[in-house]
Every structure is written in C-alpha cells, then in structure tokens.
C-alpha cells in the first residue's frame, strides 16, 4: 500500500489498472477525460497489458465494450454527461445480456443550459437501464468502489454491469490523499475473470437474438430479480474488501448519528461531507439530527431505508438533479419506498448546474426538515440556493 495525493479520475484509472482490465474503449469528454488519458499512459508505459481502443463516439465505446465483454474479457470504460446520453441505447443491451462491464460516470449536467459542471441528471436518467449504480463521496471511495465494482459485477450470482458515479470537478479534478493498494493485494481480492457465456466458435451460441413477447417478459423479470439478489453480494463484497484493505462503506447505505435521531437528511455524492458537518453543528445545539448516505441507487435500498427511518419524524431528501415538475428522482423514489413508515418526506434540490452547495444551504435544508417534525407546513420540494426572487 502506498499513499498518493491524486484526483478521483486518477484514482479510478489506478483501480481499473490493478483490476487488470483487458479492453478499454474510450472517447474523451470533460470531466472524465483524465481517466482514459491516465489509462492510455499506463498502457504505453507498459504498466498495464490492455487493448486501448480510441472509438469514434461514446455510442461506439459502449458497442465495443459489449463486443469485447461478449467475447469474454474484462472491460472498463468511463464517460460523462452527453457521452452517457449518447450511450443510452447501448446501455440497455448490457444488463439483459448479463455482461459485467464496469464504467465510471463522472457526473456532469446534460445540456441545454449547457455546462461542464456537476449535476446528476446524466446518470439519474439511466437508472432504469438495469445497471447497478452507486455514488461516491470522496477520492478514496471512488477508488475503492471501482475495485469492488469488478468483483461485484463478475460474481456469478450477479453478472451485471456497474456504473460508479462521481462528482465532476469536485472529485474528478480535485486532489486528495488516497491509499493505493498494491497489485498483489488486488490480485488476491479479485480473481481472474471467468466468463460464463461467450462468443467462441468452439461452442457457438447466439447472444441477444430477437425475443418475441412469449419470452421477453420473463427475461425482464429475471433481470429485475438479479438486481434484487445483488444486495447480498454487495454486503458480502464489502466485508471481503474490509478484510483485505481495512476500509468499509456500509453497504447500500451508510448512516451517521442516526441512533436517536428525530430528523435527518438523505444525501448522495460529495454533499454528504457537508451534511455530516451540519449534523455535528446541530447536535452541538442539542438538536437530534442524523444523516443517511445513499450509496447505491440500484439496487435501491428499500429495506435498509425503512429500517434506518423507522424512528424518524421527518426526512429530507437531497437531489442534485431534477425530473422537471416531478421533484428530484431520489426524493420520489425514497418517498415511494417509505410507504409503511410514518415519516414526513420533503425534497431538497441544490447544486444544480454545478452551483456550489454552501454550509448555509445545507443548514437551510436541515432547518426545514426540523420544522416538519413540529408539524409545520413545509413545501414538498424546495430549491436551495436560487439567486434573486424567482417566484
């Protein structure tokens, strides 16, 4: 193990390297590009034996990834925003064919009102595609989640693609102290990839034929169940990872000071650090604040959330994306999953288009959630940090 001060993009690239990725199709897009640049460098320096394929588009990137994964090798790629949107069509092809592709998506807003800054509307738009999807908080978690993603994706009980989502610029281009595992440690953690169904003339198979209505529904159901069953593997992989590397992230969700909390925020991504700080601040004032960190958006942590919120009076849900006129996607999903728990759920949209989320914004969210515990009327969805009078 060595310690370096690096960006999350470089941490992710390092993870893909020590996972001994074999094929890396790539296309540049800010703020992801550092990942594929770093991987290209590893390969040209002879530090990684992989095929780096510079594709003509992200659509082709995912198509090459599918061809290579169906061909039986370990595949990694990375993208952002418009690139992920261009892949949209091909993303759906991956889970249904049970191809364990690992991809990092460096979150960035989707145009129009175009920009290159963080927003989750790129990856949230893909949450129905069948990919396992997780969000990370810092550079170390970006690295560790990528390492675990390979093990999770390739587990025979799972065989599903994994998308690691990390905040553009806040993580991708910001350096932090990161503990880098050695190749040998990773080799002990991640076995050599042993694919199940591949394109091999010695054992010819058709992969992804046309599926008539007589069969398609069952196949979709099987995929839904496979994602459900990945929950236990996630917990198992976390344990194994903790054993091997001494770090752990709590599984599908993580909690902070929730033991006797009366109200809490649910956050994902980098805003979690700020929320933790706000909890400490409110606790010092004698207020019973808590925090739930959503790690996996898919599989969605229904049970875990019900358990974590059962003693709460009020829960606020943070969203860094909007389903226009439908609130935030995390908010609607959390609200739908808590139907048997008598807790008031409110939505809090912030950091849109890369707007900074300040301590004031986070405190405002917590204050509103606290208000709701006293039965005061709080708006269902509040946008925090809007400039000027927008009403």
């Amino acid at each position, binding site marked *: 193990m060595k310690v370096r001060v690096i960006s999350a993009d470089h941490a992710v690239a390092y993870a893909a390297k020590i996972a001994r990725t074999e094929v890396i199709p790539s296309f540049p897009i800010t703020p992801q590009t550092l990942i594929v640049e770093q991987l290209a460098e590893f390969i040209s320096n002879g530090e990684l034996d992989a095929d780096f394929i510079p594709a003509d588009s992200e659509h082709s*990137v995912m198509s090459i990834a599918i061809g290579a994964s169906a061909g039986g090798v370990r595949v990694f790629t990375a993208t952002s925003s418009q690139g992920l949107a261009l892949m949209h069509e091909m993303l759906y092809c991956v889970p249904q064919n049970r191809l364990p592709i690992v991809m990092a998506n460096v979150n960035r807003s989707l145009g129009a009102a175009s920009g290159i800054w963080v927003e989750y509307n790129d990856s949230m738009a893909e949450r129905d595609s069948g990919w396992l999807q997780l969000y990370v908080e810092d550079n170390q978690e970006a690295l560790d989640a990528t390492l675990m993603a390979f093990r999770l994706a390739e587990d025979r009980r799972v065989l599903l693609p994994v998308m690691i989502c990390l905040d553009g610029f806040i993580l991708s281009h910001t350096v932090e102290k990161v503990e880098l595992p050695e190749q040998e440690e990773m080799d002990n953690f991640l076995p050599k990839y042993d694919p199940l169904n591949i394109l091999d003339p010695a054992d010819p198979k058709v992969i992804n034929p046309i*599926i008539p209505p007589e069969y398609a529904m069952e196949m979709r159901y099987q995929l839904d169940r496979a994602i459900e069953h990945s929950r236990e593997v996630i917990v198992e992989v976390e344990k194994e990872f903790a054993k091997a590397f001494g770090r752990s992230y709590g599984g599908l969700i993580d909690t902070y000071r929730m033991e006797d909390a009366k109200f809490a925020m649910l956050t994902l991504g980098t805003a979690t650090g700020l929320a933790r700080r706000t909890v400490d601040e409110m606790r010092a004032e004698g207020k019973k604040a808590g925090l739930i960190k959503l790690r996996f958006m898919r599989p969605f942590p229904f049970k875990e959330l019900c358990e974590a919120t059962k003693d709460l009076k009020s829960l606020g849900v943070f969203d860094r994306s909007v389903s226009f006129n439908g609130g935030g996607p995390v908010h609607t999903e959390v609200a739908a999953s808590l139907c048997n728990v008598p807790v008031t759920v409110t939505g809090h949209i912030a950091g849109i288009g890369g707007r900074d989320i300040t301590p004031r914004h986070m405190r405002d969210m917590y204050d509103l959630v606290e208000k709701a515990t006293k039965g005061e009327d709080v708006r269902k969805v509040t946008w925090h940090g809007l400039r000027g009078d927008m009403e």
Partner: protein
Amino acid sequence: MSTIKDMPRNDPFTSGHGACAGCGMAVAVKNIMRILGENTTVYVPASCLIVISAMYPTTNFRTPYLYTAFENTGAVITGIRAAQRRRGLSSTVVGLAGDGGTFDIGLQALSGAAERNEDVLYVCLDNEGYMNTGIQRSGATPFGAWTTTSPVGNVVKGKREFKKDLMAIIAAHDPPYAASLSIAHFNDFVKKVEKAKNKKGFRFLHVMTPCVPGWRSDPSMTVEISRLAVETGMWTLFEIEEGSSRTTYRPQTMLPVTDYLKLQGRFRHMENDDIAKLQDWLCRKWYIHYGHEAEQPVCAVFEKRKPMRTPQEEQLHFI
C-alpha cells in the same frame, strides 16, 4: 478454392431461415458463410438478417452470433476481435450489415473501424433501402426508385438523389482490401470472399442483394437482375488492394439502363426525363470505372417508353 465447384458443402448458414423466396441477401450470406467456414464469429445489426436468422429460441447460424443495435457494426466487431485476440482465438470476425446500417446510420462506426484498421471483415449487403422496416429510401437507393419514403406522387416521382458512392468512402480509408461483389458473377464472388477471409486488417465487401418485395421484382429474376445491374453499369465489379483499384469484370458493351429498370416495379413509373438523367449519371460512372480501358466510353441509348402504373397501384402477389 477458386470456383463454384470447390465450394464447401456444409453450411454454417443452414436452411430453415425466414427470408423471402428469391432473397438476394440470403443467397449472398449463405455463400459467404460457406467460404468463411465455422471458425467465424458473426455480428448482425438491426436488419432483415437478424429477423430471418435469430428469432429466439431458434437460429440457422452454426457459428457464434451477436446482435445489439443498428448503427454499431464497425464498433461491435472491433470489440469482439479484441477479446478473441486476447483469448488466443483465430476466428474471422465478420459484421453482416445492410445498406441502411452501413451507408447511413452505421457510417460513423464503420469509418472508425476502417481508420483504426481493425482486423475484421465488414460485409455490406446492399438491397438499396430500409427493407426490413417496409421499404424506405436510404443513401443507397438509386435515383428515381420508388420507396415508401420516396413515393411516386403527382409532383415528385421517386427518389431525387443519386446513390451514394460508398466504395469511394471506403477507399479513402485505404483499407488492405475492399471489393464489390455480385451474386451473378459467382467465381468472382468466391475469389473475393476468400481473399477477404485470408487478409489481415480491415476488409470490406459490398454485395448487391436484390430484394423481391422492395424492388417489386419476380423471385425467379434475382440473379438475372444482378447480372443486368453489372451490364448496365448500375453495379460495377472491382477490388481495391493495398491502395490500387482493379476492375474484375468489364461488360463488352453497355446495355441501356431500361433493360435493368423494366424488371423492377420500383422503377415502373419512371418517365423519359428521369431515365435520361439516370442514364447520363451511369455514363459518367462507366467512364470513371472502365474509361481508361475503353477507347471511347460507350453510352447506351435507351428506348423511350410510355409512363406506366405506379408501384402503389400494382397488386403484388407477395404483399
């Protein structure tokens, strides 16, 4: 293997598929697969071919076979080849795409694969339209042809644009091998497929595959139409090898384009002005392909004819 007599007897593309009677694409694929053999991995994008050959739970391919989407043949075969090379497999990776999937929606991925000189074989099965979705015009549809999106109306009659010169685009990538094929010139067909199979790097085959419902033609005339396409200049047979182009068959004289048009309902509405335009275009093309070999490029004179019923008015037995 150099002639039809040497063809292997076992079919990786077996009978029992769902193609129409007289389908030029089925003839082409069956014979390409015979020559490529069973040590082949096939990718098929959205097209008639996927529908006729891999409807779960059946298939008529005896090779590994993948399908995903419409526009990504060049990309998917790149990925398959990379994986198989890493796994130490020597199989020929072939993409069997239609003209829509090659000329139009798949052009970018095709260009990417050709530019990277991927070690794959790309076959364009050109039936000059989006036939699987019910006969729409593509960049490969010839001038004047009726399709459902280039209909014969009172004002506009059939497609107004000429066929895209795809082989010129391929040639601009300077691939190790590219060739145009006809199912009516079988020995030429066999030689070219075999050459493509044995070369390394990016290889491209362009095959004309008449489509009975789309061309409004008689199922028994598929090969004859393919032959007349070459004799009239609507199709040319040549190959590009390491940068130099060579004609592999040159008709003795250029037949008038009407000999080709009259066998197909899709051209039945064409009036003399449009036929003259198409004939002029063909004469220019003829000169480009064969001019340096002929003393004087001959331009066929066509017989003027009366307008006929439109394809929409035809009651065709196969619809």
